[in-house]
């Protein structure tokens, strides 16, 4: 159903489309980040696409790949019924340089979606009117959904009370017991510091 849509996109952006495929009933188009804004305009305004609904905009972190972050947008057309997933890869291996154009001028839903993407991954959206954190508090340091952010790090705004005779130790130390997940994430945790182990 969306095969025609992929052909339309490929015809319009023949030199920027890096890949397109169909998997489990979803059609995906991978494009170079420089054409991200032009792709958004095309998908919204072209009558053959008519993707009036930006369903979701998020990112995925692939630390072994370069570029590292993949910005993923899901779009739907209410009139024509087809859907598309558009992807663009940005960012260097150490997480810097993740910049892409903002779609907030095209869809109102992109405003908050890009704020959340910035909050969680640190992707900078050029042209966003108000790019600040949305789910976390402004004093938070770091971008938690990156793979090199340890999941058990806490950043309390109010420091824990330091009183004697209070045992506030977790049942296992950080190196004891079975690892939480079936897969350890140690290979990406290069910036663990003493504060992470000291609860």
């Amino acid at each position, binding site marked *: 159903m969306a095969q025609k849509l992929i052909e339309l996109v490929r015809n319009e952006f023949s030199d920027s489309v890096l890949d397109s495929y169909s*998997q*489990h*009933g*979803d059609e*995906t188009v991978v494009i170079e980040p420089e054409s991200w804004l032009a792709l958004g305009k095309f998908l919204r305004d072209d009558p053959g696409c008519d993707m*009036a*609904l*930006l*369903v*979701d905009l*998020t990112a*995925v*972190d692939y630390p072994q790949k370069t570029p590292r972050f993949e910005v*993923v947008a*899901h779009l739907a057309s*209410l009139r024509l*019924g087809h*859907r598309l*997933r558009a992807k663009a890869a940005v960012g260097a291996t150490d997480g810097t340089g993740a910049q892409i154009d903002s779609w907030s001028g095209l*869809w*109102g*839903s992109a*405003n*908050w*979606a890009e704020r*959340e993407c910035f909050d*969680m991954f640190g992707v900078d959206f050029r042209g966003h009117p108000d790019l600040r*954190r*949305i*789910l*976390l*508090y402004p004093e938070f340091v770091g971008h*938690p*959904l990156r793979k090199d*952010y340890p*999941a058990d790090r806490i950043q309390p705004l109010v420091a824990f009370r330091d009183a004697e005779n209070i045992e506030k130790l977790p049942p296992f130390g950080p190196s004891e017991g079975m690892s*939480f*997940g*079936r*897969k350890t*994430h140690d290979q990406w945790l290069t910036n663990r510091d003493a504060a992470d182990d000291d609860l």
Partner: protein
Amino acid sequence: MEAPDIDLDTPSVTLDADPMLLKMGPAHPATHGTVRIIVELSGENIERADVQIGYLHRGFEKMCERGTWSQVFPYVDRCNYVSPLLNNVGYALACEKLLDLQVPLRCQYYRMMLGELARIADHLTCVSAMAMELGAFTPYLWMMKAREMVWDIFEEETGARLTHSFGRIGGMALPPTPGFTEHSQAVVTHVISVIGEAERLLLTNRIFLDRLENVGVMSADDAVSLGWTGPTLRASGIPYDVRKAHPYLRYGDVEFEVPVGVRGDCFDRFVVRLEEMRQSARIIAQCAERMPKDGPVNIDDPRIMLPAKDQVYDTIEGTIQHFKLVMEGIKLPAGEVYGYTEGGNGELGFYLVSDGSGTPHRVRIRPPSFYVTGGLESLITGQMIADVVPCFGSLNMIGGECDH
């Protein structure tokens, strides 16, 4: 008496004319949900508003990357915690889309019935809380009592009233209890009569209508641009329902209508939810007569489904199957999928990225109320401060889902 010797036209005292900043903080007696709305007021009119969410952000997406695919079910339960079975079913369907498998017919009708009961509970909460915040306390208590009866069904079926964690990849945790269809029919009949009573109490009340009609109007184009889906989008006039547009489970076989509003104001959002509950009752009645009385609820695949407990204890194959599924998890194939269903507030989507090991690489929960709450700023700008209460209540922002 002589007139006072004051010249009222040229005051000698200049009054402060800066706009007033009011913080309707995360805990407010007239809003249900943890959200902070900072409004800049000029008298009673709102000049600017800033909606701040994130007070219930618990880091679900990060937590999901540290367990197995089955361990995500308790997290998605706690997203939209007033209709948790819709989240469970939505996530299970997304995983099954990645596996390219379909659950048995009995499970499909079971999921539909439980999902529509959860939708009724969600809409009961929203509608009654909205009425209570406008001062009508009685319908709130009536609908809470009706919701308790729906929760009695959930407790009978799943063991818990609210966060069931009842869905499984490939089926459900347990088959339906013997009296499920009769129990749900009886409860739904009573819930519909309670809705009728509350309607008769509210919808002819002049004050209630004046507070809702033409307040918080959102045009259809703006609603689509803001990513609104669900009852709020349908109230603005667009008949988009995932159950009709992209049918899943057996929604293509049952008959129901999609209520659509006219003006896109708070009143339409209120009435659309009332009508949707009636349509959900229709769906439940049709599923109750079509659901097979016996047969398997779960698929029979040893790589996905846990075996029965007697097999785990008595046979070596059952022990091995149980061990591998619990310790290593279900190995979803490498790839990505976006599975979407109609949640209580709109299109609830799950974007799953799998790398082939048993641990998810990325679980993105597309929360419908996140995008709906994103439109709150434009909804209340230009309205009066008292209009924030029905506007916010009509959006049904569920903090757990909005902030995941």
